[in-house]
C-alpha cells in the first residue's frame, strides 16, 4: 500500500511566480494537512482539510490557499512567491480529523524561490 505521495520533489521558482504542490494521502485517509518547514526549524501548520472542507488554517498570509478533491488528494497553492517561502512543504494524512492516531507524512516538496 502506497504511503503519502507528494509531487514534485524539488522545485525552483522565481519571486512573484505561482506554485502548486500536490499530495495524495494514504488510501482511506480523509484528512490532509500541510506544513511548512524552514531550514533549521520545526514544521509549521498551514492548513488541514477533512472531507473536502477546510478545518483549520495556520498563521499564513492569504497568498497561501489549498483545496481537497473528491478522491481526498490535495493541492497547496502559493501566489506571489517571496524568497522567504523557500522551505520544505510537507503533507500529512490521517484517518480521522484529529491528531489522536498520529499522522503519516510524505517526503515533502523542496521549494526554492530565487
Amino acid at each position, binding site marked *: 500500500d502506497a504511503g503519502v505521495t507528494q509531487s514534485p520533489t524539488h522545485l525552483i521558482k522565481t519571486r512573484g511566480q505561482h506554485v502548486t504542490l500536490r499530495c495524495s494521502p494514504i488510501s482511506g485517509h480523509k484528512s490532509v494537512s500541510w506544513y511548512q518547514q524552514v*531550514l533549521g526549524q*520545526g*514544521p509549521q501548520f498551514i492548513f488541514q482539510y477533512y472531507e473536502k472542507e477546510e478545518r483549520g488554517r495556520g498563521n499564513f498570509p492569504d497568498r497561501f490557499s489549498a483545496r481537497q478533491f473528491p478522491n481526498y488528494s490535495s493541492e497547496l497553492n502559493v501566489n506571489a512567491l517571496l524568497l522567504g517561502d523557500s522551505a*520544505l512543504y510537507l503533507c500529512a494524512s490521517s484517518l*480521522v480529523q484529529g491528531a489522536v492516531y498520529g499522522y503519516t*507524512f510524505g517526503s515533502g516538496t523542496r521549494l526554492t524561490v530565487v
Partner: protein
Amino acid sequence: SQQGEEDPQALSIQEGENATMNCSYKTSINNLQWYRQNSGRGLVHLILIRSNEREKHSGRLRVTLDTSKKSSSLLITASRAADTASYFCATDLLPNDYKLSFGAGTTVTVRA
C-alpha cells in the same frame, strides 16, 4: 511561535549508547507525539503519549510525560547508526485538534 522546545539542540553519541532528549511545552495538551526526520525529508511517527499517560514504550524507545512540568523525554536505548536523525516533539491541544505544534528538534548523531 512554536509550542514545544527540544533540548539539547544537538547530541552526538557512540553506537550502543543511550540517547535522551527532552521537550518542554507551554500550554496544556491533549497528546504529545515524537517524530523522526532523516536528512530533511519526511517525518516518521514514532510514538504518541496521551495527557493521562506517564510512560510509554515502543521497541527501543521510551517516552515519559510530566504534565505538571509540561515536559516530555524520549530515550533511545542501544543506539544504532540508523538512529542518526532529527527528532521532534509535537503537541495537539484539544480532543480532535486539527493541528500539531512542533518544536525546533534535536539533531542526533550516532558515531560508529
